[in-house]
């Protein structure tokens, strides 16, 4: 029973990733500009060299053949060679992944800390002035694009690595505040209050436990949000991470890099969602 369940999840996981990769490859291959190269405008190149340039990526022209060949090599740990940067994709990813992961980590941690730090007093204190101020603050950051926040921090010599946090905190704040407020209206929490349990005990043993599954779901989603925000931040502020690589590769129609990144993001998202689902089910069982 368990084996069949795990097998079914694994199969869904693999199929989703394969489809994501194929869709990514199809979009790049049939997008405008795939068959051209900036070098073609170099007046020094003669006709033979221009033809050779066009032929140099002939292996990428036939999409099914390219994708099968790519997957075959991927199993062996070879993701191909970047068309624009002329370096192995595995090297590019391993060099740049730490930059993006660090940026995401700072962003997610600071966003959650700030969001919860504002949400918990809002529920516990229930002061209209505080509620208004914290809602207005989160509203401002909800409206301003992350790239603008990042650039503002950069020009002010501020900590750009926290820009993602300023994108995540309003979402965390609003969601957490609503979930926690809802938790305080649950019968078992009301009963606990009636029995005279301390506010701290009510918050940690009743409210948090009840709110945990919803918050964990948001945690899974915030990983995807953080990665999405990392792309413009890295591009605008010149952070040599995966986001900047993705942007450069998109401009250069770099098929091996873009397919690898699509698969990587798909794997990442799947794992994050699976972890979130697992945590939710554990919390739900605990709560029950």
């Amino acid at each position: 029973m368990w084996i069949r369940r795990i097998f079914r999840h694994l199969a869904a996981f693999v199929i989703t990733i394969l489809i994501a990769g194929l869709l990514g490859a199809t979009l790049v291959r049939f997008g405008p500009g795939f068959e051209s190269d900036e070098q073609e405008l170099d007046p020094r190149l003669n006709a033979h060299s221009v033809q050779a340039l066009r032929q140099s990526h002939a292996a990428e022209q036939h999409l099914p053949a390219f994708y099968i060949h790519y997957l075959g090599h991927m199993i062996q740990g070879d993701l191909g060679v970047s068309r624009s940067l002329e370096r192995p994709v595995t090297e590019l990813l391993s060099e740049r992944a730490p930059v993006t992961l660090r940026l995401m980590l700072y962003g997610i941690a600071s966003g959650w800390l700030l969001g919860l730090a504002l949400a918990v007093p809002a529920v516990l204190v229930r002061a209209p002035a505080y509620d208004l101020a914290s809602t207005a603050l989160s509203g401002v950051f909800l409206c301003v694009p992350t790239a603008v926040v990042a650039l503002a921090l950069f020009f002010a010599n501020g900590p750009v690595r926290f820009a993602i946090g300023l994108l995540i905190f309003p979402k965390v704040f609003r969601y957490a505040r609503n979930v926690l407020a809802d938790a305080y209206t649950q019968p078992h929490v009301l009963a606990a209050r009636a029995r005279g349990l301390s506010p701290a005990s009510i918050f940690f043993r009743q409210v948090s436990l009840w709110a945990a599954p919803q918050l964990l779901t948001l945690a899974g989603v915030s990983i995807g949000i953080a990665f999405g925000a990392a792309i413009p931040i890295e591009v605008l502020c010149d952070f040599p991470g995966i986001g900047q690589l993705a942007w450069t590769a998109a401009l250069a129609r770099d098929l091996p890099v873009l397919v690898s990144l699509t698969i990587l993001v798909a794997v990442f998202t799947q794992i994050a969602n699976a972890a979130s689902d697992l945590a939710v089910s554990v919390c739900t069982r605990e709560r029950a």
Partner: protein
Amino acid sequence: MKRLVATFAVTAASLLAQWGGELRFCLRSDPKTFNPLLVDDEASETVRYLTGGVLIRVNRLTQKLEPELATSWKISRQGRAIAFQLRRGLSFSDGTPFTAEDVAYTMHALMDPALHSPTGDSFRSAPGDVETTVQAPDRITIVFPAPVAGLDRLFDQVAILSSRSPKKEAATLGPFVVTHYTPGTDLVLERNPRYWKTDAGGRRLPYLDRIHLDIQQNREIELLRFTRGEVHLINTIDAELFSRLVKQDPAMAQDAGPSLESEMMWFNQNPSAPLPDYEKAWFRSQNFRRALSSAINRADICRIVYYGHAQPAAGPISPANRFWFNAALKPHAFDPKDALARLQRDGFRFENGALRDRDGHLVEFSLITNSGNQAREHMAAMIQQDLAAIGIKLNIVTLDFRSLIERITQTFRYEACLLGFTNYDLDPSSQMNVWLSSAENHQWYPNQKIPATPWEAEIDRLMHAQAAAVDTTKRKSDFDKVQEIVSDQAPFLYLVTKDSLSAVSPKLRNVQPAMIRPETYWNAEYLALAPAQLARSAR
């Protein structure tokens, strides 16, 4: 006079120069290659320029050739052969001695047809192999299969490789060597301890200990870092950022005058293009092209888009190219009345504020340009306004660069295009692939089997004639005629020649901005930092 000034400047520089320190500036992207023979992007070109040793160097200020690794040279056999006398006792950065064998090795590697090197293609005027004869360790003759126009000048781009060093292209003869590279972040070049040049005081150059190149794609951030003092120079800066810098600190903003880069637009004259026949007929008409050229106010573009740091362009050669510029040519004057008169000659009618052709078709077409280039987008908007004044509706379409290239080189699904071309070399032979009707880069109608018009046939004849001639006066005369035909027929509407703009910190000494690449660090071996800056570098 220029040479005298340059010599004086170099001598004075050597007397005042301080030793050591780290120069910092930015590259706009990662270098695509460290192999000097395969260089085709700006970042790799920077690395090649700072690390590579060449036989002959074009002085960026005087535009004259100067001996480097070769002490003298002689061209013979109608421009097919060149003999070099090399400097003795030099060695690569790893200690491997430099001999004529290295020059032979480099030329054979460069001219390998399978390499498809842009530098190699510049030498390839006909199929066949290059022959090298090493007469002595310091003498070599190189023979090409056919005459190569401006042969000696092309060696400015050829960094000599060692035939024996186990370090391959990492062994260099230039003032610096690459010692550290973090992809996407930075590149460090250290002083080459075996660099052969010395200053007037006999001290071994370069003055700087190292050059730190930060990889920085965002130009706004580059300017911010420059104003904060984190980098010492910006080699080329956009007119808008430049004008901002002028307001902030005019002493740091350097305008060296007209550059080799010009902006132009052209119409798609390809008969196989998927356009209506009447539009193709407009674009093939000389009157139509000249009329539109007269309707564009170039002076306004220079003033508004380039903040006065550009000038109206007359033709393919910029005034910065002192020898090949045809001074007799003037930019097409802004004259909307003349434009309408020319159009009427072709049967166009200006009615109720709109222009119609003789069959009643409304004159409306689109102009494509690359997105993200603010100056070009502004320029397109100004052209749109100018053409509206003579009843033409122009639609502006911005595309990302790859999509644009696909349209102008493969699908031909466009009507008009606004773009700029960079001249890599002063010699017009480097433009053969633009002017020959059979060429790939003959943008308005590429790859013609036979010339489509008599004037294109005449350009073909003149370009071949100038390339085959050894006498530079004859070459100049032929190319002047090419420029006159281009101005008269207007296959390209040359709009502006941009100024060579850069930003240089006052802490950096001996900088003499030029209009040829690399504008600010062409004399990198003589660049030095002010004493206060040296102390900071040391810390």
